[in-house]
């Protein structure tokens, strides 16, 4: 997995940052419901310009209206290591979702740069571990989706790299440096399965996005912002009230130990479609 050590790769990524939306995009990709769970998107070493698989353009979100937006701390061992931007969109007009009940759950994170606790040990980030100087790295994101093992519900995935600066502070105008590598219905991430995985790795209740994020990455390429990660489903439950809810443990961040970090699993509340 350590494929981004060299300057050429950094240059390629810089070029990617400038021309990330250059290729024709294919738009949403439908996650598989049987067999090996992962869909290959753009694994390392990254292809630049990126393949079109699951790559969205802002126009792919036209017709969607914003229903909910929140920012939450990402807390590990009592230390805030980053911010989650958690949103819900639906197809609709004005403030009203239309009868198609098409909802999008959107995820973006920004890892914190402010050193706290042990600035002398690592001035690049808040240190969350008493025994490690590594900044927290998220390798995989998991979101709760509708569906069960026996009765999967179709889910589409997509991502936007963003725009502007990779060191910006605005979630709507900042750029991810690293691409989404895989997506799929699984609750396993880096060093827990070997892409594309097997049927045993499948979990039809979760959407997984494989996207490395680290403010100070041991692999030499920092990406403080994740891409915008989208999962789209039909969400018919809720009647006249909201068809989504803030649900416990609806998001999971996984640090898989790409450069030998501690494997760490952090679960938190997040938006999800109502399931009944």
């Amino acid at each position, binding site marked *: 997995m350590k494929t981004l050590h060299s300057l050429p790769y950094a240059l390629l990524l810089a070029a990617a940052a400038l021309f990330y939306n250059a290729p024709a995009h294919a738009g949403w990709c439908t996650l598989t419901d049987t067999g090996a769970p992962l869909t290959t998107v753009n694994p390392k070493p990254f292809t630049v310009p990126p393949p079109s698989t699951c790559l969205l353009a802002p126009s792919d979100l036209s017709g969607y209206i914003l229903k909910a937006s929140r920012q939450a701390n990402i807390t*590990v061992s*009592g230390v805030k290591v980053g911010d989650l931007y958690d949103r819900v969109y639906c197809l609709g007009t*004005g403030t009203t979702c239309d009868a198609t009940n098409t909802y999008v759950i959107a995820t973006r994170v920004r890892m914190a740069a402010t050193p706290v606790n042990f600035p002398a040990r690592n001035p690049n980030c808040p240190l969350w571990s008493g025994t490690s100087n590594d900044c927290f790295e998220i390798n995989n994101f998991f979101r709760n989706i509708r569906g069960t093992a026996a009765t999967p519900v179709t889910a589409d995935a997509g991502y936007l790299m963003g725009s502007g600066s990779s060191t910006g502070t605005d979630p709507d105008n900042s750029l991810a440096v690293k691409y989404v590598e895989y997506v799929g219905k699984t609750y396993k991430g880096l060093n827990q399965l070997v892409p594309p995985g097997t049927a045993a790795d499948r979990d039809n209740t979760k959407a997984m996005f494989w996207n490395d994020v680290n403010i100070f990455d041991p692999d030499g390429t920092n990406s403080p912002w994740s891409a915008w990660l989208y999962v789209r489903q039909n969400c018919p439950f809720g009647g006249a009230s909201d068809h989504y809810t803030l649900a416990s*443990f609806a998001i999971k961040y996984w640090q898989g130990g790409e450069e030998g970090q501690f494997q760490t699993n*952090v679960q938190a*509340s997040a938006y999800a479609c109502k399931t009944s």
Partner: protein
Amino acid sequence: MRWGVLLVGLVVAIVAWILMRDSTTELRQPAARSVDVAAPAPADPEPLVTSNAALDIPTPCEGQPLEIDLGGQHTSACMGTTSIVQNGSVRTYRVDAIGGAARWFRIDASGSKVLSAALGSAAGDEFRCKGSQCKGISIGRHDVQGVRTISLERATVGEQVTVSGTLHTIPEDEIASLACPEQGVRIVTSDSSAQSFCPKGGAGFEVANDGTRTFRFTNLDGESILVELDGEERVKRVAYEGDSTLACKRGECGRVAISPPGGEGERTVTFAGTTLLETTNGERNAVLNGTLVVPAL
């Protein structure tokens, strides 16, 4: 003849004296034995017994005592202060034994819901339970000082392993990783519960189909304060969603105000004696004081 009688009498008297002497000796023996046990005084007298351990009296626990039953083997443990570590929505409460004993006990919880518990020691033995297996553990609401009581009533943490006792938490606003120095709301309820609400679990807004905008603030226990605005940005409803829901409608809330967007787009909600009633029966109320900030989103 007279001398003969005297001689016989003397012999009888001597025999009788001898017999009586032996008999007296036998009767004395038990007393003599007891004297023998106590009598030999040591050259250096043993000091007076002063420690509870030597008297087999337990030392009073100056921490938080736990009674542990390991498959019928009963032990007591004196645990220190309850430490708290937050990971996402999971809060870990942990106590370690005082005084070198390496026993520890840990509970992972989300709000008042117990997710798992474990009992272990430096010797490596460890017992665990998960979810509904963890019977007998209850995490109470905050008391008037913000302390939560964790009751362990023969809490089952493993097969034939139970823990009993009471643990107390430190108020969240005294824990740096949980406190919000720059914002927060003090919530005091009519049943003498008090807590500092810190929205480290998130802040944002939700838009209903009718256009009603609701600001939602969530703490790390998963509890939310919601402030609902009408189309003219007036507060329409305030609610607190925790183990139960308390709410008030416009005109019945007391003072609550929301600022226009600040320089970075953030908005501040101010509560000053804002009073909410339990929605199910109105028997309990909560008074909110403080400020919460909605970041630019």
